[in-house]
């Protein structure tokens, strides 16, 4: 290893692990000791990353308060050194961290709230794609509908939450007092996507969530309707399927429709 490479290794270890080896190669300034000057880098490293986390997770920050968010952020920074040159992706593992690390794992609402914010961030700058319009559906003959398959917009993300984190998100966003966190008997099924340039989310019924997941997986409309028929009134299944589809198209959730070949 060259002197230069060894020095960079020592410098980085000094920031990440608090090791003082590199101080032997650093000069005092005319006005300040080297320890304090090197401390600028040590301080800035953690502060910058926690600040970036706060920008990605404004409502989690609000929910936890400055002190707890800062403490949690420092724990995340210590456990997840950044490996991506772009700060945009630094907080990506936060929901998993909160789910698996005590004491945060004792409060599943924290991981859920982080997951919802992450999904909204990811939808915000997800790839662009054409948006299917209702007029695009007019060209298909009624007998072709059973074979139609669909492509979800690349910004669309499905999330199942075990807590009332979405209600807490809405309250915090509206600057209202959030409800107490509770665990739900049935998961809250969310669909997150970008409509034009704005990230959105809404809650789906169990039936619509099933249809969305299967449609996004390439299952044809006719089969989707048969699946819906197992959930509720079989006679109304096709109408319900058409209704869900209409809702998805009119909110920019689909990017393509393909006829059976």
């Amino acid at each position, binding site marked *: 290893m060259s002197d*230069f490479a060894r020095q960079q290794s020592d410098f980085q270890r000094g920031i990440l692990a608090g090791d003082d080896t590199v101080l032997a190669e650093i000069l005092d*300034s005319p006005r*300040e000791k080297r320890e304090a000057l090197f401390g600028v880098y040590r301080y800035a*490293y953690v502060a910058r990353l926690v600040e*970036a986390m706060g920008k990605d997770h404004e409502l989690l920050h609000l929910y936890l308060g400055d002190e707890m968010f800062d403490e949690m952020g420092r724990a995340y920074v210590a456990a997840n050194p950044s490996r991506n040159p*772009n700060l945009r992706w630094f907080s990506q593992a936060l929901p998993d961290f909160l789910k698996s690390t005590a004491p945060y794992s004792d409060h599943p609402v924290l991981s859920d709230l982080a997951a919802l914010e992450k999904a909204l961030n990811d939808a915000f*700058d997800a790839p*662009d794609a054409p948006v299917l319009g209702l007029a695009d559906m007019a060209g298909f003959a009624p007998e072709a509908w059973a074979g139609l398959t669909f492509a979800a917009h690349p910004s669309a993300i499905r999330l199942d939450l075990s807590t009332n984190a979405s209600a807490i998100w809405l309250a915090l966003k509206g600057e209202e007092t959030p409800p107490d966190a509770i665990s739900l008997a049935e998961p809250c099924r969310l669909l997150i996507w970008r409509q034009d340039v704005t990230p959105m989310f809404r809650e789906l019924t169990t039936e619509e969530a099933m249809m969305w997941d299967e449609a996004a997986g390439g299952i044809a409309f006719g089969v989707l309707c048969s699946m819906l028929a197992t959930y509720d009134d079989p006679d109304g299944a096709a109408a319900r399927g058409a209704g869900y589809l209409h809702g998805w198209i009119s909110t920019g959730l689909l990017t393509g429709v393909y006829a059976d070949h």
Partner: protein
Amino acid sequence: MNVASKLPNSPAALASQPLPSDKPPFLGFGLGLRADHYTEILEGNPPIDWFEIISENYMLPGGQPLRMLDRIRERYPIVMHGVSMSIASTAPPDFEYLQALRELAKRVEPKWISDHLCWTGVHGKNLHDLLPIPYTQEALDHVVSRVHLVQDYLGRPLVMENASTYVQFNNSDMTEWEFIAELTRRTGCWLLFDVNNVYVSAFNHGYDPHTFLAGIPEDRVVQFHMAGHSHMGTHIVDTHDHPVCEDVWDLYAAALKRFGHVSTMIERDDNIPPLDELLLEVNRTREIAGRVLPPFRQA
């Protein structure tokens, strides 16, 4: 046959390579593009000559940032400024990053691409800071070879910026300005002279910023950065969250006298005020240049 001497980055090959001579154009007086100002810019067409983007903020799959940038670049010249190239890192270059940078440049068609003379991490980690280097022959040779490589990869000369630093290494055997002068001479890279960073580093290390200024070749500077900082008494931290201070305005005037008409911009990264407030600072860069220099004439 000595194969090494025939490799594109060998000292022998570099010595025989002509320096790029197409100097980027003078763009006038600009501002760092920040998301807070998108609407005001698109609705108001403010009198700003050009914008600098932080490249990483647009190295994204899609969505609003890229869409806004597409609209703004229809009206204003754009320069790309990165913070993560890590040109002085002893780790292998991040080619995935460079590829994304090249892709963005295809879309944006910037007047030039700049980054800092620094490193941001080794061993696969990124510290998201502009970390200092020793000014040694070994470091210079290393950075020269990396600048050549990246210039070849991007197919254009780089613009390298002096970073603010808080420490100096005891093994440095040249000054920062000697290092930079050699770097531009040996690679043909252009220079982004950050007036505030010179002021910050000069205070932190106890030298005269005018000595730094006098040590930079007159004909290699294509851009100035102007920014604010936080004074801690014994040292200054380059926070970009304040207006430009009077000492830095004075140094700017001196830099104009040495380097002539150089594209100048106000760089605010934190505590971002309304656009009007930054326009006052942009106007001041223009006024000082008008006072110090003869009117600009296209060559």
